[in-house]
C-alpha cells in the first residue's frame, strides 16, 4: 500500500529538489505581525525548554486565586476543608462555574448527592459541560474520579459532603493514586472535605472557617437572610509558604445586595500561627 502511495507522486529514479527554507518565518515581522492576543500565547522552543511555570485554572474567586498564586494548579490535588455552613459548597460551585463557563468540561463527584442544578446554573455554571457523578461510598468516589481523570477531564471536583463521610476518609493510597493520575493528565483535582482526608497527597490545603451569618432587618420588617461570612486560610502549600488568610463573603441568591469587594490577604504574624476568627463565630 505504502509503495503504491509513494509511487503515486514521485518516481524512484527522479531527482527531488530540496524545499527552500522559508525566510519569512524568521523575519522580525513574523510573530509581531500577529494580534496581541495571539502573541501572548506564543512561546519559542527555547522559552519552553527552561520553563517550569505551572499551568493554572482560575477559580472565579479572586481571594482564592490570590491565595493559590493564580488558581488551581493543573496536575495537582488541592484540598478545601470546612465544616457546615463554611461556604465550602459555594466554593465548589464557583470553581465549577468558572471552568465550565470558560468552555472546559468539568466533573463533580458528589458523594452526598447535594447538587441543586438550579443553584449551579445561578452561580453561572454551563450545565451542559458539567458531568455529575453520584457515588455511594468513598471507594466508589475514588474509582470514579480516577476514571474521569483518565478520560481527560481538566477539572475533577470531589465533594465528600457533610460529616460523617460515608465510608470514612478513604484510603490514603487512593488519594495518592488520584494525585498521580491528575499529574499524569495535567488535570486540576479539587477535594472538598469536612475534615482533612487526602493526607500527604494534597499539594495545597485551604481551610474554610465559618463566619457570621448576615441577616438584614430594618425596623419591624421581616428578617432576610443575606449571606454568610467566612475566612479562607492556606494551611499547607507544597514548595511555598503557608499561613496567609483572607475574609470572604457569600451573598444569598435571594438577596439583591451587591457583591462585596475582595478582602485583602492577611499575612501570618508568626510562621505557624494564623489569625483566628472571634470566638462568637
Amino acid at each position, binding site marked *: 500500500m505504502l509503495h503504491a502511495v509513494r509511487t503515486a507522486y514521485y518516481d524512484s529514479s527522479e531527482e527531488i529538489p530540496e524545499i527552500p527554507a522559508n525566510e519569512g518565518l524568521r523575519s522580525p515581522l513574523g510573530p509581531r505581525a500577529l494580534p496581541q492576543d495571539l502573541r501572548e500565547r506564543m512561546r519559542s522552543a527555547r522559552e519552553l525548554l527552561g520553563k517550569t511555570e505551572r499551568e493554572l485554572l482560575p477559580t*472565579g474567586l479572586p481571594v482564592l486565586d490570590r491565595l493559590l498564586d493564580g488558581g488551581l494548579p493543573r496536575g495537582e490535588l488541592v484540598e478545601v476543608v470546612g465544616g457546615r455552613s463554611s461556604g465550602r459548597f459555594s466554593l465548589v460551585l464557583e470553581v465549577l462555574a468558572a471552568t465550565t463557563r470558560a468552555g472546559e468540561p468539568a466533573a463533580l463527584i458528589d458523594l452526598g*448527592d447535594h447538587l441543586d442544578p438550579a443553584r449551579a446554573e445561578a452561580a453561572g455554571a454551563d450545565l451542559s459541560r458539567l458531568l455529575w457523578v453520584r*457515588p455511594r461510598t468513598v471507594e466508589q468516589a475514588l474509582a470514579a474520579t480516577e476514571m474521569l481523570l483518565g478520560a481527560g477531564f481538566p477539572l475533577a471536583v470531589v465533594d465528600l459532603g*457533610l460529616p460523617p463521610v460515608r465510608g470514612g476518609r478513604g484510603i490514603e493510597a487512593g488519594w495518592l493514586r488520584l494525585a498521580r493520575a491528575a499529574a499524569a493528565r495535567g488535570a486540576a483535582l479539587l477535594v472538598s472535605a469536612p475534615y482533612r482526608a487526602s493526607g500527604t497527597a494534597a499539594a495545597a490545603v485551604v481551610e474554610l472557617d465559618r463566619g457570621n451569618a448576615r441577616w438584614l432587618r430594618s425596623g419591624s420588617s421581616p428578617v432576610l437572610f443575606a449571606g454568610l461570612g467566612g475566612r479562607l486560610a492556606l494551611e499547607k502549600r507544597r514548595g511555598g509558604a503557608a499561613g496567609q488568610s483572607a475574609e470572604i463573603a457569600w451573598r444569598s441568591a435571594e438577596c439583591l445586595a451587591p457583591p462585596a469587594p475582595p478582602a485583602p490577604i492577611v499575612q501570618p504574624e508568626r510562621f505557624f500561627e494564623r489569625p483566628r476568627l472571634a470566638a462568637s463565630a
Partner: protein
Amino acid sequence: MSRKSDADRSRLACLFVPLFPLAARLRSEPELIREALAILEGNGQAARVVAATRAARAAGVRPGLSLPQARALCPKLAVRARDATSERAAEEALIEVADAFSPRVESARDGTVFLDLDGIPHASLRGAAAVDPAALERALGQDLAAAADAAGLPARVGIASSKLAARVAAGLPGSPVIVPAGEEAAFLAPLPLARLAPQVDLSATLERWGVRSIGDFARLPSAEVASRLGRSGSELHTVARGLDPHPLVPREPPPTFEEGMSLEWPLATIEPFLFIGRAALERLTRRLESAGLACLRLELDLALEPEGNLRRSIELPAPSRDVKTLLSLIRLDLEANPPGAPVIGFVFRSHPDRPREAQLSLLGPAALSPDRLAATLARLFALLGPERVGSPRPTDGHRPERAALVAFAPPPPPLVRERAAERQGRGLLGVRALRPPLPLEVITEGPGPNANPEAASNAAPARPIEVRPVVGGAGEDAVRRLEIRGGVRVAAGPWALEEGWWTDDPADREYWDVELFGGSVYRLFRDRTTGDWFADGIYD
C-alpha cells in the same frame, strides 16, 4: 452475458477459504494451528472427519473417516466439533474483507465469496500508464488474499468472467489464478470433473460413462444429458460449459455484527468465559473498526447446559470500540445476574453506530476524546448505574430536591480560550440539597401547627425556636448523624411554595431560613397539609 464482447464482460473474483470449518475453528483457537487437529461433524458413532490440519493430514487423516479410524492413524489427534457460530462469524469476516474491495459482494456460504470487480483495477489507481490487465488482476488478487489473511482466514483467489470459473480457479493451487476473459470453457475443459463437485450418484454415473474431465462432459449434447440425468445433471452440464446458471446477487450489509463460538466444555466460572470472550470481542471490534463503526448496544446470547438460552442486552452511553470497557460491562452484568447454569456457547451481537468525532482547536481549551469519554461513561454506568451519572438539569418547578439528568454530551469547546478576568464568579451562596428532605421536630412559638390554618394565616406565623430529630421517625438516623439539632438563633420566613396542586404529588410548603446556635444555617420547611417539618438544604 455471452452476448457482450469479451472486453465488456464483467470480471468476478472468488475468495475461497479451503477447509472452511477448520479455518473458522483456527480463527477462534489459533494456538491449535500446528497441532494434529480434526473437525468432526455428526454425533457419536456417526461422527465423521470433515477437515484436518496439515499435521493430521500428514498422518493420513482424511475427510470421511470416523473418529476411531482417525485416532488409529494419529493417536495424538485433537478433535473439535464443527462450530456453526464461529463459521458464521468467519463467513461475515470474509464478506467484510470483500466489502473493502467491492460494493457488490455475494456470499455463497462455506467460505466462498464472490466480488464484482467491474471498474476496480483501474490503471490510474496504481500510478502506471499502461499495465497489463492480467498483472493488475494478479496484484488485486494478492491484495485480496493478504486482506483475508489479516482477518485470520487463509483464502485463495480466482478471477474470471463467470462465477463458476472463478470458483474453480480459486480452488486451484498457485493463488491467485487468473482466467483471461472469454477463455473460461478452455480453462475448465482439462480439469477433472470432481472440481465441479457433482453429487455422489451423478459422479458415479458419469464415471461409468467414461467421462473424466469437465471438457468431456461439456461436449455431450445438452438435451441428451437432461433426459438421462434430470434437472441436476442439466444444471451441471450448463456449468461445465462455462455458463453461469445464477448471476451474482449482491448482499445487503447486515445491521448487526456477530462473533461467538460453541465451547467444547461447559464453563461454570466467569474468568475462563471472559478469557475466551475477550478474543471474540477483539475480533468483533476489529470488524467494527474496518467498517468505521462502533458498538452502541451489545447483545450477549449464552447457550446454557443442559438446555436453555440467556439473552442480555448492554446499552452503552455512547458508541465505543474499547474491548476493555465492553469486557468489564459484560463482567459486571454477569456478576450482577449470573446465568445460573454452565455456559456451552455464546454470541456477541453488536448493534453499531457511527462513533462520535471531535474537532480539535488550536487556541481554545482541549476537547475530551469522544472515544475515551464513551468508554469512561460506560464504565461509570457499570460502577454506579445510569441513574447516578449524567449532566444535571434544573426541572420545571421550585422543589429544590428535584433534579433531572441528561446524557453527558458536552458541546465543542470555544475556539479561543477566555481571558481570566472574564471568569470572575458571582460569589453566590450555595445550598447543599438534602435528598430526600429530612423530617425534623421543630418547636415553634406563636400559633401551633394544630391551629386552624385560616386563623393562622392572618396571625403572626409560628416561628421555629428549636430543632431536633423526630424520635422513631424515618429519617431519625440521618438527622442524628448530621447533628441537625439545637436552639434557633435567627429565623427568617416564612416564604410559601405551592406547586403541583393539580397532581398526585402536590407541594404546599412554608420555608424558613434558620441559623442554629451552633452557627449552621439551614433551610427548613413546614408541609402545610400535614404540619410536619423537614430540612431540605444547608447553606454552605
